[in-house]
């Protein structure tokens, strides 16, 4: 993370002129604002910040920012970001995407990114549906949801993933839940995640008003957690057992050392030749 003292940035400085493709009322607008607000709160330099995403409605975000961006392929945002961060530890790297992108096609990378604990922040706009492909159930969709022509009658019958539990057990160093309807709260959680070393995971409940109209009601059921973040993973796990999915706030803040590959003993390529010469 590069702090800049010469210029003070505002959220507007991180927004590009590109008009989002999102439906009116989509939760992702608010998440975009929260991300740019978090960047401004941390006064990150846009040119030293990178936003990496996969594919989906939510994954459109990079082009809507004024940072370096990579709109990669479906499910691969975390690994592109990992390569970038390992090659360029000086940059602030934020990864953004959807529940399908991150937990289904990119599920393996999600596990290993938590485990690797590279210093970056992963914001998932979880709308419990595949928005971009028009309404199929995702790994976080409720078992009985069948309000779409794309879902089997009576729902999939499959228990949804609990992404926070997975992140916690796989080793993420910061685990939080946010709600798009509370943009300031979300911005604060994202900023805290960026500041926290290691892999930070923030699941943002971001309504898909087109395919999950009922998610408009989320604003009536979410509540801010009163308890301070757990610093002990087993304590956090216990809280998750009682969690109904609507508690907003930081669940867990760990102190695992973030991953840094071995580098640098100052040899030259010519030194490497020597081992082959007879």
């Amino acid at each position, binding site marked *: 993370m590069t702090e800049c003292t010469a210029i003070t940035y505002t959220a507007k400085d991180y927004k590009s002129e*590109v008009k989002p493709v999102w439906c009116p009322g989509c939760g992702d607008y608010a998440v975009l604002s929260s991300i740019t607000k978090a960047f401004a709160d941390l006064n990150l*330099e*846009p*040119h*030293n910040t*990178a*936003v*990496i995403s996969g594919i989906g409605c939510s994954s459109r975000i*990079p*082009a809507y920012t*004024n*940072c*370096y*961006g*990579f*709109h*990669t*392929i479906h*499910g*691969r945002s975390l*690994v*592109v*970001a*990992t*390569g*970038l*961060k*390992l*090659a*360029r530890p*000086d*940059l602030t790297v934020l990864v953004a995407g959807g529940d399908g992108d991150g937990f289904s096609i990119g599920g*393996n*990378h999600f*596990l*290993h990114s938590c485990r690797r604990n590279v210093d970056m922040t992963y914001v998932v706009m979880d709308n419990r549906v595949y928005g971009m492909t028009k309404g199929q159930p995702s790994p976080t969709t409720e078992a009985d949801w069948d309000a779409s022509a794309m879902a089997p009658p009576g729902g999939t019958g499959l228990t949804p993933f609990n992404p926070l539990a997975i992140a916690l057990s796989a080793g993420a160093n910061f685990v939080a839940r946010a709600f798009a309807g509370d943009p300031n709260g979300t911005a604060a959680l994202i900023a805290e995640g960026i500041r926290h070393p290691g892999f930070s995971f923030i699941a943002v409940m971001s309504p898909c008003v087109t395919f999950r109209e009922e998610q408009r009601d989320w604003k009536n059921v979410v509540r801010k957690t009163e308890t301070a973040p757990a610093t002990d993973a087993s304590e956090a796990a216990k809280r998750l057992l009682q969690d109904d999915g609507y508690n907003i706030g930081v669940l867990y803040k760990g102190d695992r050392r973030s991953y840094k*590959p*071995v*580098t*640098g*003993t*100052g*040899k*030259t*390529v010519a*030194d*490497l*030749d020597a081992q*082959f*010469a*007879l």
Partner: protein
Amino acid sequence: MTAANMLLDAAADAGYYALFGRSAGPQIRGGEAAALVRLSSEPVTSVDDTTEILLAIDWQNVHRFAAELPLDAKCVIITDPTQGDVPEVMAKSGARIVELPMKDLAKEIPGGRPNMIALGAICQLIGLPIDTVTEVLGKSLKKKRADAYEASVAAVKKGAEAAGSMGTTKRLPPVSDKPLRWSITGNEGAGLGAVRGGVTFCAAYPITPATEILEWLTGALPKIGGTFVQAEDELASINMCVGASFGGAPSITATSGPGLALMTEALGMSLASETPVVVVDVQRGGPSTGIPTKSEQSDLNIALYGMHGDAPHLVVAPNSIGDCIFTTQWAVNLAETLQAPCIVLSEQSLGQSRGIIPAPADVAFTGKRSIAQSPAEGETFKRYALTNTGVSPMPVPGTPGCQYTADGLEHTETGLPSSQAGDHFAQTDKRLRKLTGHEYGDHWATVEGEGELAVITWGSSTGAAREAVERARADGIKAKLISLRLLAPSRPEAMGKALAGVKKALVVEMSQTGQFHKYLRAEYDLPETQLLNRAGPLPFRPHEIHSRLLAMGGK
């Protein structure tokens, strides 16, 4: 294997060149294995027609190797009488059979081992001074284990003595001077070529027969300030490389066919977003998991055509162990200069074989990644500007004013997603012409000799083709060798020149379906052409190509 390695080291010390391949069964460790060694006073890039000396310490599971060990009446088979009869598949060649009781002789020396008896016997037979062997033993054993050293020297000497009564075999010609040579495998060479080309980042997932590239880079990259990561799978490794490259670090990954199959979507992203990356595919027998430990030239199609969409990219192939160094370095240079993915098609038989080769030259290429600088006040940076060459300057993140979003979606010059026909025409044209318009120089192929006959080949088949062409020349048939190093984009003009005056061509490739031949026919104007092809893993022997050339030349 230990004895073969020592034979190789001794021959290297004495001034010879060598090619050392190994054939092992599917076992993870131990089990039967054959060491295939060819020594010469001249550089060697091919296996020979037959095996001159076959020494069997035992005959366990020899049927697994029989096809890889061609024998004839001129060969000598050295066998240990305590290990049973020479198997019929071997004996029927008519080879001379000589007995050497390696087990029993070794027992006469406290701590003596049969493989050292074997080593001594072979050195004696081919005329490699025993001193060079004992010196090699000294280097590897003397300090660590003096008793093992004494026992090994005694065993080598005993083996040499026993070989005195075995009659004559072909001996190595004496060498007077010791040219500058390297001992290297193709996989180590690919690793070295990568760092010579400027690679500072590698993410990879282990796979036979590419693992040694990763093994070498794991040690080498940190030494020069670079980064190596073992990824969770090939989807991760290629995408990490693209991410690192986006960040400004020239990146490489290495894999084999199954891994390349997983990587194709990300290669398309590298291509569309113009983020350079290099993938080395050390080919194994395919399809599917195929034969992981053996060679084939059958990933050409996936390398050329594996990506969806119109996807112009770079494909190169080394044609010898030493060329793995050059071609991988070149691949990095091309990928970086042209901001495109480059696939290096190596092969198991290059990657996992060791060569004593002429010391490779230090090559420096002039091109490099064109780096964008901050635009002037009030100007907008265009990441995908339509330049004359088609290459547009690429910024390193951190450069103020050059922020852009790299995208696999089709885009405008500034990089914004676009589904408009005009943008698609302009950008697809840009991505094609930057490759076709590039000056690749003489590196596109290895072209040797002149004549009305040509052998057109690629990769590991080149060594045998070279020897066949030389033999044909000795028979009065003028033939030339054209071995393609640049497979994509094609070079019709350069090929036209190489084929000037050629009336007939023989295409040689290790692919059952003739992938290379079909590719040549699609991309090039060819003279009357014949095809010599088959599935792997048996390498072409020079005489197979030679006899076809004789027939084509009317002899």
